[in-house]
């Protein structure tokens, strides 16, 4: 009888420990992915700058090209979805299309609300400005992403291990209290 109760307690303790550890891991990964996604978005912007200034590709072609060069992630999907919508939708301008694509992809990213605001900044004059104006706008967004990237790096360095330990330690504390 005693051993049965002990066993149930042990299983419960393990479950609590696993849950809190996974929660800590999730929080840690969120910080990692936010940094990675912002980094990829900045890569995308650099590629876009090249496409606009040198190859003078149209936006859909540039977006498809960028989407294929970035690893298959939410960020590459953002470019591909925008490119596809630009080819298919004639009731929206390219800025509106970009915002719609951001809205569709954002829930699958680890970006913050402030990051989303920066990403949406690309919609301003997207496809409607002349070459110099377009490049300046891309440059402006790139600079904002770089600032966000520094913040993401700092938070990742500070929080990555902390969340893992916190998950494990929090779980162990709960187990001790309950046992």
């Amino acid at each position, binding site marked *: 009888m005693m051993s049965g109760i002990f066993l149930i307690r042990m299983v419960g303790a393990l479950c609590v420990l696993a849950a809190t550890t996974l929660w800590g891991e999730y929080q840690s990964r969120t910080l990692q992915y936010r940094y990675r996604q912002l980094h990829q978005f900045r890569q995308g912007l650099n590629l876009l700058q090249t496409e*606009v200034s040198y190859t*003078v*590709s*149209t*936006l*859909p072609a*540039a977006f498809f090209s960028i989407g294929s060069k970035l690893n298959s992630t939410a960020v590459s999907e953002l470019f591909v979805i925008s490119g596809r919508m*630009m080819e298919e939708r*004639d*009731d929206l*301008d*390219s800025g509106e*299309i970009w915002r719609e694509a951001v809205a569709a992809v954002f829930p699958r990213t680890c970006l913050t609300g402030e990051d989303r605001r920066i990403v949406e900044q690309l919609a301003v004059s*997207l*496809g*409607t*400005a*002349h*070459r110099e*104006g*377009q*490049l300046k706008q891309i440059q402006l967004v790139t600079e904002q992403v770089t600032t966000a990237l520094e913040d993401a790096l700092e938070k990742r360095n500070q929080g990555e291990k902390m969340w893992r330990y916190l998950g494990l330690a929090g779980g162990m504390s709960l187990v001790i209290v309950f046992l």
Partner: protein
Amino acid sequence: MSISQKNMVEQQLLTLISPEVRKVLQRVDTDTWHKTEEIRIRQNRPLSLNRGSSESFVGIKGNLLPPGQEVKAFCAGKEDISRTMQLLSNCSMYAYGEELRRGYMALPGGHRVGLCGKVVLEEGRVKLLSHVNSLNFRIARQIKGGADKVIPFLLNRNKQPHSSSFKSVKAGSPLRVHHTLIISPPQGGKTTLLRDICRCLGDGMPSLKLPGFKVGLVDERSEIAGCFNGVPQLDVGLRTDVLDGCPKAEGMVMMLRSMSPRVIITDEIGRDEDAGAVREMVNAGVTVITTAHAGSIAELTGRPQLYPLLKEKFFERVIVLSGSRGAGTVETVTDLITGKNLYP
């Protein structure tokens, strides 16, 4: 224009126009499309269709309005113009800097759209066009067979070399084409005739025992071949090489050096460098066929850049067109060497 051609224009042009304006234009009947040459969209002003010399406003139901009924016309707004520009540029205005500088864009099917707006200058030269507020879609239509009547006058059956290029034409050289200038006032049908001459010479005409020639077409404004992304959208002949968007004078020299053409065709000469390039071509033994704005040969002599070419008889034939019986009506064909009228 048959129904299928109307459909073709609808597919090629109307898809590039904002949905609101497109809806109105889709209601325009087939007969109206038959004669339509231009679609004009002006910001906050009535939508209109140009048919020959008349321009009619279009009502919301796609009907053409009689004069004085402008208030019932459909007016395109700023949003319509900006949406149309997005469709024309494939959401990429930055990729069309050169077109915005020149004030027109070539479209699939050989059509063109002329643009008006705020001109941005840089060091006194046009840098680009911004805030576009007027669009003029010019519907390309090719009239095949329009040159059949004039081609016989352009052929030198006697194989006589031209006086200005006798050194470059060897004895017994094959059939050659006369250096020809086509003149008419604006919208007189010069480009249409030139395109068909180009097609006839490039294809050859078995009925006239005319073999096909290697033709070099220098199409500075993409009007003759209607190139889109460098590919001719209109029939300019099987043996015709097209240099699209290239300045005429430079293009003629490039064509001569790279493509060894027998005939060089270009549109609307008028500057000193164009005249210089024509001299160079004629002296290189290449036939030049070109056009110029003028109502008659007498008017042409008043143009300082072109007069020396006439005086020195660089051109052997001058074709005068008018719109007296529709655009492209051939009024006269003159032999400039003898001064005789060959037609009528």
